[in-house]
Structure formats: C-alpha cells, structure tokens
C-alpha cells in the first residue's frame, strides 16, 4: 500500500500552540510520526541567568499560563535546596493549597479540550464553565486569576486569612458537586468508553523507556508522583492517594485526571482546615544564597517539573535549568501513535496534555512547510465519535 505523509502545523486552527507533526499513513493507519518543535523557544534559561534569584521566580512563572504555580514552586525548591532553607508551616500549607487548585483548573481545561476533540462539546462547555469558579478562588487568594506571584524563597508572599478560607470553602463545595456530575457523565457514557478505550495505548515499558512522567506515566502503571516520592511543602502532612491505572490508553489517562481532581479537592480541604489553626509566619527571611547547587522539583498537573540552580554566592544564578513535563511526555507519541487509525491520532496527541510553551521555553518560521496541505484531523476525530454514537444508540 502507498505511504502518504500528512503534515500538521506548525500553525493550524486545530493546534492551540505552534508545533509540527509529519504523520506517515498507510491507508488509514498511522505508521510513523515525526515531531518538530522550536517555534516557541524564548530562551528562559539564559534570561534567568541575567536576573536575581527573586526575579527568576517571576520569570519562570511566565513560562506557562497553566503551570504558573508549578514552575515557581520547583524554582524556589531548587534555590532552597542549595542552602536547605526551612519553610514555615503556614507557608507550606498555603503553597500546597494554591498548587492543588492549579491542578484542578489544569485538568478541567484538558478535559474540556479532550471533549471538544472527540465531538463532545457539552463536556467542553461544562468543564470550562466550572473551571471559572476555580479561577475566582485564585483571585480571592492572590488578586490574580493567573500568574499569582505567591512563591518566595523561604515561604509565600501573601497570607490566606480566615475570611478568605470561608469564601474559598463555599466555592469549593459548589465545584465538588459539579465535578461529581461531570465524572458521572463521563464514566456512564457508553459512547465515550467505546471511543477512548484501547485508543493510543502507551505500554508500561515504553513509558519507562521514554521516562514519561505524570498522568501519562501513571495511566500506564508507572507509580511515580513527586508529591509522594519526595514530599515537600505540606504533602507529607495531608492524606491523599496516587491514582495509578494500567491500560495506558486515552480512557485511562482521562480517568486518572478525573480522579486526581477529587484527590486535589481532598487535599485543599485538609489545607484549609489546618490554615484555620496553624498560625505563624509565612516567610522566613533569606538574606543570601551561598555557593552551591540545588535541585527542585514539583508534581505539576502534567508531571514532574524540574529546576536546577547553581549559585556562585552572588545574587543571581550562574546556571538555571528548566525541564517541563511535556518535554519528556511528547516523545511518547512515537510509541503510542504507531498502528492507530488516523481518526484516533488527534485524541492520542492530546492525551498527554502537551504544553509547548513549557517544552521549548525562540520563535521560528518554517519556510519548508509552504505549500503543505493541511488535513482536518478534528473533523475525522469527531466523525468517528458520531459513527460510534449511531451504532450504539441506533440513530
């Protein structure tokens, strides 16, 4: 059978961010996939080395709009790791509270997009509608809906007082109710199950070989979660489960994220309960960072985010390495996309929740892509769902 190449990107209405895929197909089956990135690289590591330690935290916050707490947390962990800085108890709970809220809003964002890709626009509207209250919670905590500016070396910038906690609790109660509704709707829908089960399987061994992280790895049975493996902040003081499934398909990746929303909610409630009683400072004064090197990591919604800092004793890092989870997860497409029908390619690509802002951290124009004919993968994907729906419901 003839091989055909389907170029997707780098700028395409289907893709939220700039990336380029060259998908090789034989008939309807994907036989190979090549990825080309580099359109979003902004040189964050080099810029950070021109900034002071405190400025670096604000810089890394702007790597990604979705992970705008995960990067700063990993960054402050790296700086604190150089000198083993102690964090006040209250600050530890506040960090955990903000970080878990971020996980809920990120997972809801993904869930909405996944719904849209397979033709479930109701799920998309619901998920994004109920993400709004979470953003309001951020506004109550920090004054911002995104880029919260909460992290500092040695603690946090703002306190969350009792009045704020009361307002947050009220919103969280409403969100929990709606999450159960969405989870039930997703779990009980036979069309969704038929559409996603067995699609884009990432085998356990492939997840290990590609060093996948986060929900992508956990859905393939790799039990890794930085929150449990190296508990920092308040993660050793709260009770929660790590969700691990074994099939590695898109359905399992969806379920992992859905269940993680409930675990996050559980953690947030525990933190809010403790914040009512655990009084004390929220910031330890750190005057200087001695020479040395430190590793900071944090379990972002997409997996482990990694920062490495090296100090020479001055007020700025001489090396700052940033590795976002999508950098490790995107190459797993090579394993998960081969052999699948073209209509499933889109949802498989989306299932790792790729974030190119994070991955590349330049702007590049690809001249060779001129004249490439785009193909509407979104339409293919949605049509397949419609076929399954008609078969099941007999319409």
């Amino acid at each position, binding site marked *: 059978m003839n091989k055909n190449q389907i170029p997707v990107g780098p700028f395409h209405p289907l893709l939220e961010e700039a990336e380029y895929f060259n998908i090789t197909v034989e008939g309807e089956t994907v036989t190979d996939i090549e990825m080309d*990135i*580099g359109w979003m690289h902004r040189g964050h590591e080099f810029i950070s080395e021109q900034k002071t330690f405190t400025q670096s935290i604000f810089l890394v916050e702007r790597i990604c709009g979705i992970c705008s707490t995960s990067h700063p947390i990993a960054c402050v962990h790296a700086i604190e790791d150089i000198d083993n800085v102690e964090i006040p108890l209250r600050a530890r709970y506040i960090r955990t509270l903000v970080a878990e809220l971020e996980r809920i809003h990120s997972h809801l964002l993904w869930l909405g997009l996944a719904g849209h890709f397979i033709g479930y626009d109701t799920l998309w509207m619901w998920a994004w509608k109920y993400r709004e209250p979470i953003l309001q919670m951020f506004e109550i905590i920090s004054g911002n809906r995104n880029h919260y500016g909460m992290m500092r070396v040695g603690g946090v910038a703002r306190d969350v007082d009792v009045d704020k906690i009361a307002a947050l609790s009220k919103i969280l109660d409403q969100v929990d109710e709606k999450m159960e509704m969405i989870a039930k709707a997703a779990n009980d829908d036979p069309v969704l199950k038929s559409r996603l089960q067995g699609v884009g399987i990432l085998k356990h061994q492939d997840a290990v070989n590609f060093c996948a992280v986060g929900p992508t790895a956990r859905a393939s049975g790799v039990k890794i979660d930085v929150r449990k493996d190296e508990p920092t902040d308040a993660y050793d003081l709260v009770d929660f489960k790590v969700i691990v499934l074994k099939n590695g398909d898109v359905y399992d990746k969806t379920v992992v994220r859905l269940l993680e929303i409930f675990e996050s909610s559980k953690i947030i409630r525990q933190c809010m309960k403790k914040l009512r009683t655990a009084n004390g400072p929220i910031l330890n004064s750190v005057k200087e960072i001695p020479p040395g090197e430190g*590793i900071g990591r944090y379990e972002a919604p997409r997996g482990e985010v*990694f920062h*490495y800092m090296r100090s020479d004793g001055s007020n700025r890092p001489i090396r700052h390495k940033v590795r976002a989870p999508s950098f490790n997860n995107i*190459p797993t497409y090579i394993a998960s996309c081969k052999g699948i029908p073209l209509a499933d390619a889109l949802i498989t690509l989306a299932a790792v929740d790729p974030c190119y802002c994070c991955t590349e951290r330049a702007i590049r124009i*690809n*001249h060779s892509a001129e004249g490439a004919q785009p193909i509407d993968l979104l339409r293919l994907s949605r049509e397949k769902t419609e076929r399954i729906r008609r078969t099941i419901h007999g319409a």
Partner: protein
Amino acid sequence: MAKMDQFFAEMGGLIGKTIRKPKRIYFDVDKNNLTQVVEYLFNRMHCRLSTATATETYHNLEVLYHFSHDASGDYYCPRVLITDKQKPAIPSITPIVRGAEWIEREMFDFWGIEFIGHPNLIRLLARDHPQGLDKPLRFRRDK
C-alpha cells in the same frame, strides 16, 4: 540509603569527586565510564532520567545528568567534565535510555556537544532558525 551504599559499593571504582547532600548525590564520572554507570542506574536500579544540564564553566564544559530514584526520592547526578571546549564530545546514553534523545539533541543544539552514538543527532529547537544560526547558542552569549 541502603541503595545509595550499594551503589557506592558496586560503582565506587568508576566515580570520582563526590558531593553528598540530603537526598542528592553529585559525583564525577569519566566519559569512558559514563555508559557503564548509566546502565547500572537505569537498568539495575530502575532510576528515571529526569533530564541533563550542560554548563559552561571557566575551564570546562560539563554535563550533569539527573537520575531520579523514585522509590526512595533520591537523586543520582553523574557529572562528566569535558576539557576540550572547541570540539566537545562524549558518548551518547540514548541507546540505553530512550528518553535521553531530545535531552541530548537540545544540548547539541545550544552547547555544541557531540554525543557519539546518538541515533539522530540534529538540532532540536534552533533548526531552520530565521537568523540561520551557524554555531551553537553558547557562543552568542557574550554579544
């Protein structure tokens, strides 16, 4: 901790200067011993490669690998010093750890380090750059 001691007992002969911190261990490895150490960390200890950091210092280039031992939360960081700054080259670990492919390509792109044995050593991020970069970005830092 037991794992760390066992690592030292078995690999001690291959590693040089060591810095131990709580949950972190940084150690020098000669480039000729790198694949042996990585093989032990990845296949025997089931560590996961988080990433690798290339750094330019006054005298050297260095590559610091970060292996996470998730069962214990420890980090094992082998450090390879490269003295030849004009033509830096070390063995690739991609044949052992598949996930190192992009990590090594990024270092090749920005730092010009050649990874011998890498299956597909092409620039990762700055390929087809509009300004036509003809040398690694590290040479552009002082501009």
